[in-house]
């Protein structure tokens, strides 16, 4: 079947098998390997991408279901060589170590800050509670999101055209 969607502002059109999961479509068909794929059981959240601005576990959505929608992956955070404040924050505050959970963590953080530009620790922890980090102990991730909240200047999602 034919699917058409926007990924990071670019129109993508591919012929796929209906059973193809969105995570594999993004990684293997489109070649954007920034989206990671971990547990395969909807638990770890490393595969999170934004669909119409909302965080979704892309291992638990069919590519077919995303057809006609706007997808943002971690590659879409940076615009014209300028990192998103969320990415800067993760760098400044050691929000990552191995980096495996990072794409999902950053996208959830991005979506959170769009809704709540000044979240508390508790709100941040709740927002990322469906995602697992085996390295940082989460505290530096929370700090990174605060850093981003204090440095909100970047363009909103979907403006990367």
């Amino acid at each position, binding site marked *: 079947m034919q699917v058409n969607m926007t990924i990071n502002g670019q129109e993508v059109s591919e012929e796929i098998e209906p*059973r193809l999961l969105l995570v594999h479509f993004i990684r293997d068909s489109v070649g954007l390997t920034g989206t990671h794929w971990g547990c395969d059981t909807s638990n770890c959240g490393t595969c999170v991408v934004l669909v119409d601005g909302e965080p*979704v576990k892309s291992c638990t959505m069919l590519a077919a279901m995303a057809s006609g929608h706007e997808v943002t992956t971690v590659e879409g955070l940076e615009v014209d060589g300028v990192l998103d404040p969320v990415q800067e924050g993760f760098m400044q505050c050691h929000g990552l170590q191995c980096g495996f959970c990072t794409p999902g963590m950053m996208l*959830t953080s991005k979506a959170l800050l769009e809704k709540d530009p000044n979240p508390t620790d508790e709100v941040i922890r709740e927002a990322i509670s*469906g995602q697992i980090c085996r390295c940082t102990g989460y505290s530096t991730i929370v700090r990174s999101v605060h850093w981003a909240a204090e440095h909100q200047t970047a363009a909103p999602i979907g403006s990367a055209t």
Partner: protein
Amino acid sequence: MQVPAPFEYERATTVEHAIALRERLGEEARFIAGGHSLLPMMKLRLANPEYLIDINDLTELFYISEESDEIRIGAMTRHRELLDSELLAQYFPIFRDAEKVIADPVVRNRGTLGGSLCQADPSEDLSAVCNALDASCVIKSTTGERIVSMSDFHVGPYETAVGPAEMLTEIRFPLKANAGSAYEKVERRAGDWAVVSAGAAVWMDGDRIAGGRVGLAAVGPNTTLIGPVSEALDNVVPSEELYQLVGDIAAANCSPQTDQRGTEAYKTHLAMELTRRSLRRAVARAQGQEA
């Protein structure tokens, strides 16, 4: 890598279209709502439908509305909307209690009320909520619609009254005067399925409980409504003794199994304790003593 078996994909544009597709494609076709129960099962090949009918474009099924004597919720309403709804929080605080602890925020962006009820997993939380609130389900087919009570809706684990050419479209919740409700869940870690959970709803007549209902999750089949509890809550004065009695009835009417989430004895204890707590809170809310 877990990959579902091959199937054909159709996207429905209206409720009528979805039902017509289901009728034409037959037993081997399934609706896909949020997909957060169905896709994991398909990845494990526990479900192998030949056709998937995507109902995510059916915008007419996304709503929470207030009628004169009931609240109506469209089947495609997602967990996140149920959590955020001020209308639900005002009339049925049990919803926000439960939604805060159902899965995690990312899963809640996709999973739906209709999908949860149709999945009918004995560990699923919203069936207990809907049962406590005495909800009824609107089931549509090409020939019309029928309305069934929650007890008739649940046929057994993973089995509902929705036939192969039918669709759950709406869930209705009667508004009762002086009502209160609450949900209590124990989970091993954030976002996990319940070890045990319990939901209670009561409606008062002055200082007395006029009636009440309790539903449990994760303690075996046929526990989303504990019938004998409703009898014990018929026109009684609330007290700690009553909560204990009702907790004991709930524990006696469940049949949990020992698994990695806990032993049978622990779960039976939780069934008692969580029933007590949810009932106590439901009464406090009905009396305006707690938000």
